[in-house]
């Protein structure tokens, strides 16, 4: 179970976010409260437009909440920081840098240069199985490979919290399954706190210790499901009765929200 006793890594306190849209104010988030424990893997599902990305960007420090606070390691988030890394859906690799230089970017920003940076970068490039492509440019890689590079780049900067916004959303089912497995492996090895947004209930369940279900208009947390299925999880886990039971539970709630949004 997600530990009541564990240290809290990220504390989201009554966060509200409104955007100034063309037609007036859009309340993207309203009264969001969530505590994420150290090393915890939290997944987030919810209908499109419910504010998942907004929440992630606020945790990352890329967006300011209209009111409320996010605390990471006990410090209030006021901007981006080395304790938090992000993997974006659109990969966001720098197309003018090779795989190796992309992975080294965060290290260079931290002042780690030359051989030391290369060594660390190579470690993570090996971790995602791309040694053969170190000197390739992103345009020479498939979608799955690009996302592997993005994951290696995020890991190499060594954040404590990894924020992922539908990182596998653009990939085909097979690649997606493979990357999920790899992500779980590295999570178990590297001990990071993960906040993972997805549209896919299966994905949320296979990865997360807790699944956060968000509701739309205004975006808030509707329910949090503890996934009491032990790791390691694999494809067979998806056939287990408990998995299917939880899947139904989550799906019905998400579907309800979907219908709400349609109205």
């Amino acid at each position, binding site marked *: 179970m997600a530990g009541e006793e564990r240290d809290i890594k990220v504390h989201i306190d009554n966060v509200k976010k409104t955007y100034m849209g063309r037609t007036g104010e859009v309340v993207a988030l309203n009264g969001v409260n969530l505590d994420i424990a150290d090393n915890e893997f939290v997944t987030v599902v919810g209908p499109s437009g419910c504010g998942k990305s907004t929440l992630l960007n606020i945790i*990352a420090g*890329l967006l300011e909440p209209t009111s409320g606070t996010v605390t990471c390691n006990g410090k209030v988030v006021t901007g*981006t920081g*080395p304790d*938090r*890394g*992000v993997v*974006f859906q*659109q990969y*966001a*690799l*720098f*197309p*003018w*840098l090779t795989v190796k230089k992309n992975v080294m*970017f*965060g290290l260079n*920003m*931290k002042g780690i240069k030359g051989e030391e940076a290369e060594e660390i970068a190579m470690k993570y490039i090996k971790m995602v199985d791309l040694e053969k492509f170190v000197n390739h*440019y*992103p*345009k020479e*890689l*498939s*979608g799955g490979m*690009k996302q592997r590079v993005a994951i290696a*780049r995020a890991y190499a*900067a060594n954040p404590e919290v990894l924020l992922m916004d539908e990182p596998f959303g653009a990939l*085909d089912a097979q690649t997606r399954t493979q990357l999920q497995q790899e992500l779980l492996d590295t999570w178990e090895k590297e001990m990071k706190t993960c906040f993972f947004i997805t549209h896919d209930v299966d994905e949320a369940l296979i990865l997360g210790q807790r699944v956060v279900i968000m509701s739309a208009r205004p975006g808030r947390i509707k329910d949090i499901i503890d996934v009491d299925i032990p790791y390691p999880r694999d494809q067979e886990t998806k056939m287990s009765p408990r998995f299917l039971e939880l899947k139904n539970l989550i799906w019905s709630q998400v579907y309800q929200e979907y219908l709400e949004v349609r109205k």
Partner: protein
Amino acid sequence: MGDKSLTKNGGKQGGKLMSRIWLLISLAVALGLWTLLSVLPQTARSFPNVIVTLSQIPVVIERGILWKDLSSSLISVGAGYALGFVIALPVAILMAWYKPVRNIIEPWIQFIRNIPPLAYVPLIVIAAGVGRRPQIIVITIATFLIMCITMYQGIINIDETLIKAARVLGARDKDIFIRVLAPASLPFVLTAIRLGASVALTTLIAAESTGAFAGLGMRIRSFNNNFETAPMLLYIIIIGVIGITVEKIIKLLERKLTGWQEKREI
């Protein structure tokens, strides 16, 4: 199925010889047409044949005008074009950065861009007199407009997630400028340079209608007044050769510097 990332520039290998052959064929067709034009009674007067035209090369050299015209035109074009670029780059950056600057400048750039330079040449001559100065001003204006708009549109379309990704990885404003915005804009800067070069040359005739004492464009008009069609045709071809050479060089540079690009623009 449907995997976009698998598209490769297929059929590139062995294409080099083929493209050489096609180039030769194209050249032969052009020569054929030219010869035809030089024979047909309706067009013979304005299209002296290849031999007559090319035999004008030693003549114009001997008359001492070719080098004078070439250097005069290249100085005007080079100076105007360089000035145009030096002004366009910061203006494009400011337009991309600050909304007020964009809102004020963009409409009139778009407006002037559609006016043929020949139309406003008299105004410039009235303001700046005759000689080198108005020539440079005309080319500066024309190249500035095209380069500014091209670079501005490139910079404004830089993928915002790249900036976000850099920020999350610890980049500060200075790093973002040097390590993200600069390389991300490079393709557009190079495209602007290429389009600017082409505009600089096509503006040449207009620029040299300002009462120039020498220059390719000025000479073409004076040949025209004396019914010297052979050297005129030669000069027209020289402008074309300069244009295509500059374009090839810039394209090579683009391939060298921005080969990392996902898709290449035209």
